[in-house]
C-alpha cells in the first residue's frame, strides 16, 4: 500500500519553525547585546577602587553597567544629570554626571555607560545606552 506523505511535511514544518525561532532568538540576542558591543573594549569601572582609593584616575574610559538608583539633580538646560548608579551586582552607589542627556533617564533603568573620572574626582558619563 502506498505510504502517506504527511510525516515528511510535518518534519519540514518543524524544521522551518525551529529555524524561524533561531532567527528570532538570534536577532533578539543581537539586538540585546548591541549596547555592549558598542562599548566593547572598555574596562569595567573599578567601583571598590574608586570608593576606597584616594588617588585620581586617568582620563581612561570605563564601562559602568548598572541600574539608575535616582536622578539626583539636573542642570538648568536639562542636558546634564547627576544620577546615582548601582553598578552591576555591587551594593554600592556611585554618583555619575551625565554630560548629554540624549535619552531621558529614569529611575530603575538599566544603563550601560561610558565614563571617566574627571579632574575633580567626579565620574563623568560621556555616552550611555539604555538596555
Amino acid at each position, binding site marked *: 500500500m502506498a505510504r502517506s506523505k504527511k510525516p515528511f511535511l510535518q518534519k519540514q514544518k518543524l524544521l522551518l519553525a525551529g529555524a524561524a525561532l533561531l532567527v528570532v532568538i538570534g536577532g533578539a540576542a543581537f539586538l540585546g547585546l548591541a549596547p555592549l558591543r558598542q562599548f566593547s573594549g572598555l574596562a569595567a569601572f573599578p567601583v571598590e577602587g574608586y570608593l576606597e582609593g584616594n588617588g585620581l584616575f586617568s582620563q581612561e574610559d570605563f564601562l559602568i553597567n548598572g541600574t539608575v538608583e535616582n536622578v539626583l539633580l539636573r542642570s538648568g538646560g536639562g542636558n546634564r544629570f547627576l544620577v546615582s548608579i548601582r553598578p552591576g551586582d555591587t551594593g554600592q*552607589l556611585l554618583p555619575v554626571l551625565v554630560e548629554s542627556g540624549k535619552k531621558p533617564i529614569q529611575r530603575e533603568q538599566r544603563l550601560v555607560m561610558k565614563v571617566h573620572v574627571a579632574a575633580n*574626582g567626579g565620574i563623568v558619563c560621556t555616552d550611555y545606552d539604555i538596555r
Partner: protein
Amino acid sequence: MRKRFPGSVVIFLPLLVLLRAVLAMDPDLPPASGMPAAIQNQPIVVSTFESVEMERLRLAEENVKAERDEIDFQKQVATLQKKLAEASATTVLPESIPSDYRSFLSANAGHIERGEAYYAELKSVLNALVPDSPYKTRSVEDSSNARQASEKLLKLSSYPEDDDICRSIRGHISSLAGGRVDDHRRQLELGRELRDFNVERKRLEWNLKMAYNVNALTGETGTQDERNFLRQQIEDVKKEIARVEDENNSLSHRVTAEVRKLQFQQFIVELAIQQRYIHALIACGFYRNSFKGADLALSKEAYPGGRGGNGPEAAPESPQPPTGGVPAEIPVISTITGMEVFLLNRIRDSVKDRESIDNMLRENQVAAAESLVRKMILTAKYQPELQTIPYASRQKILQGGQSMRRLADAVNARDYAEIQRLVAELKSQGADTGLSDLKVFASEHPRKAMHWARQAELAMKAGDLKSMHSLMEMAVGRAPLDPDVAQKIEDIQKNAVGDQGLLEELKRLVAAGDYRAAFDRMNEFAPLAQGANSDPKLKNDYEALLEREKNLRASLEKSDSLERRGAAPEAWLELEILPDPIANDPRVLERKNRLAGQCPGFVGAHTKAVGHERANRPAKALAWYLNALAESPGNEAITAKIQTLGGNLLEN
C-alpha cells in the same frame, strides 16, 4: 448582644480617653513606651543669670526696706519705753529714783507699825488742839485742850519718826509765851559774867594808869611794852563784855511780842514747807490758844522803821503805796486762818488719796496706785496716810513696778520671749496697764528678725555679701536673744565660710572645663559666679560651660527620642554632629557606640564621606553620602549634604 455593644463603646471609650489623659498628667508615672516623644530641643529650666540679677535687685530693695524699718523700730521702742516709764517710776534708772521713794517702798513692817503708833499719837494731839481736825469725829468734844496737847507732845518726842519736831514746837511755844525757863538761867549766867568782865576791865585800866607813875620803891616808871600789853588786855575784855551783852539782849523774853509772833509764824510756815501739815496745824492750834481770838495783829513796834496795825480794827482803809523815804502803811497780816485752811485741805487730800490707793490696790490697779503714791511722796511726804501704807501694799506696788522695770529691760534688750512672759504674767494679775501693743511688739519683731535672716541667707546664695552682712546685722540687732535667729545666722556664717572654698572649686572647675559638674552644681555655683563681679571672665567661662552641657543634654535627649522611634542612623548622626569638647563626652561616645552597632553600614559610609569631604574630595564624599542615604532613606541631613555636593559637581 449586638444592640448593647454600641452602648458599651459609648460608655467606656470616653472613660478610656479620660484615663489616658490622667495618666499623661501624672508626672511620676513613666512615659508609655509605645508613645514616641516629641522631637524637639526641649528647654531645660534652670536659674539663669538674669534671674540671679533680679534676685540681687530684690535684695537691695529688702536692704533699704530693712533700714527704714529699723528707724520705725527705734521709734516704737522709744514710745514703749516712755509708756512704761509713765506706768511706773521704777522703770527708770535706779540712780534717778528718789532714795526716799525706794526706802519708802522697802520699809520693813516693824517701822511701819511704829509709825502707825506715832501718827496715832500725833492725830490725838491734833484732835485735842484743833476742833476742826479732819481726824476728829464730831461726837468728841470740840473745844481745844492745849495743856493735854502739850503733854502729848512730850511723848511724841520719843519717837524717831518725830525728828525732834515736837520738841521744837514746844520750844517755840515757850518763846511765844514770853521766854523759856532756861532763858532766865542763862540771863543770870550772863549777868555774872558781865560783872566779872567789868571788874577785870577796871583792874586792867587801873594798872595801865599806874604804869605811867613812878614806882615809889624802884623809882622807875612802867615800860612801853607793859603798857601796850595792858591796853591789849583791856580791848579783849571789852570785846567779851560786848558779846555777853549781845547774847543777853537776844534772849527771847527780851524781844517784843510782835517779833515772837512773827518768829512763831515763820516756824509754822517752815513746817508747812516741809510738808509736816499736822505739825503745822498743831502749831497753829497752839498759836491760837496763846492769843485768844487773835490773828497776827502787828503793832508798829514790830517794824522799827515804820508802823503796823494794832489789830484788825487798826488796818488803814486805803493803804498808800510806799513813796520815797516815807514809811508805808503796813496792812494787818492775817495768815493763820489761810494757813489753817491750806493745811486742812492738804490733810483732807491725803486722806482721799489714801482711800484711792487702797481701792486701786484692791482692784489690782497697781500702776495707778503707784502713780498716786509717787504724787503723795512729792506733796504729802510726812502724812500718816502715806507713811502708814501697809507693808503688803508697798510690796505689791514695788513688785508691780519691778514687773514694769523688767518689761522695760526686756524691751531694751529685745528679749521678746521675756516680754511675752511678763505680759502674760501681768495680764494674769489683772494689771491696769495696756499691754496689747507690747504683745504685738513681742510677736512681730522676732518674725521680722527671722525674715531679715532669711533674706541674708538669700543674699549669701546670690553672692551679695554686702547685703548679706547688712541683713544679718539687722536680724541680730532686732532679736539678739532669739535662739532661732541666732541659729539661722550661725548657719549663714558657716555657709558663707564654705562659699570661699566653693569659689575656689568653681575656678578649678572652670579651668578644667568640667561642664557636667558646672551644670549639676549650678544652684551652688551660679550665685557665686554672678557674685564674682571682679572676675567677669570667670562668669563668662562658667556661662559657656553651662551652655555646653545644656546643648549636650538636649542632643542626648533628641537622640534618645530618635532611637526610640527606630531611627538609629538619625540618632547616631545627632550625636555625631556635636561640637568638639562635648563630642568626646563619655555619655556621647557610649551612646554612639551602641547606635553604631545598630546601623554599621550607615556609620561606615558617613564616616568615610566626612573623611573625604574634609580631604576636599567632594565626589567621593558624595558617593559615600549616597551610600549612607541608602542606609538611612530620607535622612534630611544626608540629603542636604547630597544636594550641596551634587550641586557643586553639576555646576563645575
